[in-house]
């Protein structure tokens, strides 16, 4: 059974462990170059001390130390990566297997539901421990202080364990994988927001003691190395995991602790055609992703005025910021342009996830009844692509609105049209994600989500890595994200936008053509 769990997670685990360990270690090795010029160092310290930057990156604890610098620059990103991965993998391998009845045969054997859950959690916990250990080992190999590396590695791994325990709990509460995943990610998101507010607002810094992300930061890697907050994280994780296992022993297989209505009147809206039905299935995911994307861009909007005001008054710092990867940050337009380019990561992931859901409907045979209706393959796939595109447009607009509201609330000036131009500038990369996902789903390939995330999340990671290690321009140019102009600071790069959009359309057409010809798996 542990073998079964391992088979389901090994590929993703390898990627996450490589990223969690590789990114901080790579950044640590660039420390000497960044800190060669005393003027640069002063600038970096000034940026890092700004409340808005503190909100995003956390408290700068030991910038002079290569390890401390790496933790500041990448700690939040790797913690979120490991946490979200651990949570989603947990719901996928537990509730996600139980929901369609795949555990029924398994549970007919001598092992109880609690035992099965415990074995899966054991494997998942091991992977988080592995991610933490690899992070620590890579930082030691990069030449940083072993004690600090151990504390940071432990913090990263423990956050993964916490996320697994939370997701194990939500998998007991809810009957569907989607609800369990959403609730687990919401808990992590709330924890991150609390940490951000605690870091950004001096009087509320105590809030960090209420968040797992806060505890990881309060362990102060490379700046005191305190074990106390991590022990607190261990205790909370243990309580959550134990509660999940107790719950697993007290519920029926296939059911959740939260009672769901077993009977309800028919809601016939959006069931009149395959296109309407695709839209109906899209509504909830769009609402969920909108909440996440909206909250994040609202926060960025709120911080934009503070950051840009600070940089505008420090020309030297702004210049230095340009050289460390933050360009044009002394104006609201520049700051928002920089954060808007990130939008293709979540919206592209949304698009990939929707096409993955379409592929899942085929492989678990839900699609048969529609495929037996007088509908061409093109309509079946096209309905999904149309609904997904509409959802992506909504998310793109939500990001612009949230940023605009945030900037306005903080007393800044950003035209709504500029915000919209900025977010819709990322649409070609989102469409590339959709195009790749359509090709993957159309061809019946596994891992539609992962493939669809390559242009967005993959491109962003490639760009960060290329910037961190000063890779040749050609490597950076492989990332579609690198071809996005900083809008609204500057105008749209129409050539790049059209080339990427055309490529996206070609990928989608290729996907539709393969889909039309191949045998369905249902």
């Amino acid at each position, binding site marked *: 059974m542990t073998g079964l769990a391992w088979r389901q997670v090994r590929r993703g685990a390898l990627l996450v462990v490589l990223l969690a360990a590789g990114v901080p270690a790579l950044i640590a090795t660039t420390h000497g170059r960044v800190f060669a010029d005393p003027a640069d160092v002063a600038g970096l310290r000034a940026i890092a001390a700004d409340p808005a930057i503190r909100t995003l990156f956390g408290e700068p604890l030991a910038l002079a130390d290569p390890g401390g610098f790496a933790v500041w620059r990448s700690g939040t990103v790797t913690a979120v990566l490991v946490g979200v991965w651990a949570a989603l993998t947990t719901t996928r391998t537990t509730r996600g297997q139980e*929901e369609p009845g795949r555990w029924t045969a398994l549970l007919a054997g001598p092992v109880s539901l609690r035992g099965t859950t415990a074995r899966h959690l054991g494997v998942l916990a091991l992977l988080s421990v592995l991610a933490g250990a690899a992070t620590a080992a890579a930082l030691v190999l990069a030449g940083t202080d072993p004690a600090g590396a151990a504390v940071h590695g432990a913090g990263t791994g423990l956050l993964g364990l916490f996320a697994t325990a939370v997701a194990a709990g939500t998998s007991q509460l809810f009957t*569907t994988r989607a609800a369990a995943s959403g609730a687990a990610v919401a808990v992590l998101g709330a924890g991150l927001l609390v940490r951000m507010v605690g870091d950004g607002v001096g009087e509320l810094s105590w809030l960090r003691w209420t968040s797992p992300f806060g505890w990881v930061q309060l362990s102060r890697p490379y700046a005191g190395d305190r074990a106390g907050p991590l022990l607190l994280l261990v205790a909370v994780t243990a309580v959550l995991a134990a509660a999940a296992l107790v719950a697993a022993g007290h519920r029926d297989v296939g059911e959740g602790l939260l009672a769901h209505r*077993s*009977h309800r009147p*028919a809601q016939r809206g959006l069931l009149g055609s395959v296109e309407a039905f695709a839209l109906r299935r899209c509504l909830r995911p769009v609402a969920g992703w909108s909440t996440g994307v909206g909250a994040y861009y609202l926060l960025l909007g709120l911080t934009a005025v503070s950051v840009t005001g600070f940089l505008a008054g420090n020309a030297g710092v702004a210049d230095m910021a340009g050289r460390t990867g933050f360009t044009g940050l002394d104006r609201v337009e520049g700051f928002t342009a920089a954060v808007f380019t990130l939008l293709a990561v979540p919206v592209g992931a949304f698009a990939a996830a929707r096409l993955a859901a379409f592929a899942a409907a085929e492989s678990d045979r839900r699609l*048969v009844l529609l495929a037996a209706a007088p509908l061409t393959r093109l309509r079946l796939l096209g309905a999904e692509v149309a609904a997904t595109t509409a959802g992506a447009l909504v998310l793109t607009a939500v990001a612009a609105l949230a940023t605009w509201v945030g900037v306005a609330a903080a007393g800044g000036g950003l035209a709504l049209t500029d915000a919209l131009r900025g977010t819709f500038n990322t649409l070609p990369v989102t469409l590339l994600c959709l195009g790749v996902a359509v090709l993957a789903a159309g061809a019946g390939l596994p891992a539609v989500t992962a493939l669809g995330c390559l242009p967005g999340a993959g491109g962003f990671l490639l760009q960060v890595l290329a910037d961190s290690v000063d890779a040749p321009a050609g490597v950076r140019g492989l990332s579609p994200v690198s071809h996005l102009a900083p809008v609204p600071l500057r105008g749209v790069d129409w050539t790049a936008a059209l080339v990427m959009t055309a490529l996206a359309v070609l990928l989608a057409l290729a996907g539709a053509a393969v889909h039309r010809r191949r*045998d*369905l798996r*249902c």
Partner: protein
Amino acid sequence: MDATTRTTPGATTGATRGGPAVHAVGLTKRYGSTTAVDDLHLRVPAGEVFGFLGPNGAGKSTTIRLLLGLARPSAGSARVFGVDAADVERAHRLLAHVPADVALWPHLTGAEVLHLLAATGPGTDTAYRDELVERFALDPGKPARTYSTGNRQKVALIAAFATRAPLLVLDEPTSGLDPLMEREFRRAVAQARQRGQAVFLSSHQLAEVEAVCDRVGILRAGRLVEVASVADLRSLHRTEVSASYTGAAPRLSGLAGVEAVETTAPGRVRFTLTGPPGAALASLAAADVTALAVREPSLEEIFLDYYGEGGSGEQVRP
């Protein structure tokens, strides 16, 4: 317009369409070196209830996938009323399908699934659908995720029977139904036949096929080895009879339909019987029978019995 109120003339014009309900010519499907369906020739006229028999893995479901255009044939062709099966937009206006293992969208209730299938399908008689919901005792207000296998099957059966499509393609549709529902299923098939709808019924339940089908085709290892009327199929039946007696040994050898006579113990005889049992029973009665057991062989046994010897020489796959 509410799509569910649409109805099509369907069955009444089925016979006037471009050809037989199902017409397969040299239909072949290979997966790598495995041949799932091998040079299948089949013709099911409009309005006929056709049983498609075969053991597990014989290629029944693959044939249906080819017929529905879900899979492409490696060679040959399948047509539905003269329309190429690959042209699903036209062919599927003429058919409704119940898959072997029905999977539904877990969040939709039964009523919502029925509404969706009526809106996207070939046209539905909603009044008859509501009647079928009653007859099959389906609770349509429950989310599909709470349905048992049998209830999911009922949803698909109701949706298919409520259409007026001139062809119903049913893939082992009763495997999850209880005997009462099985009876409703047979009634629904009979009513479909009365309306002139053709039914292509894949099954490995001989009793069901005998009860509702006009003709049967028997598939083995991807090849169609027999197409016969149900009357002919009955003649394949060899009932096994065991009897204990106290009198003189009954004279059974040579009686019409009696074969494989075997004395299993002193005072016990076993033989196979095909056709009317009168002569054999008269012979047994003369021997003062104290116990009599009659066992109908399973479909699998008939396959083995009939095709194991003198057939193509291939073994039935388990």
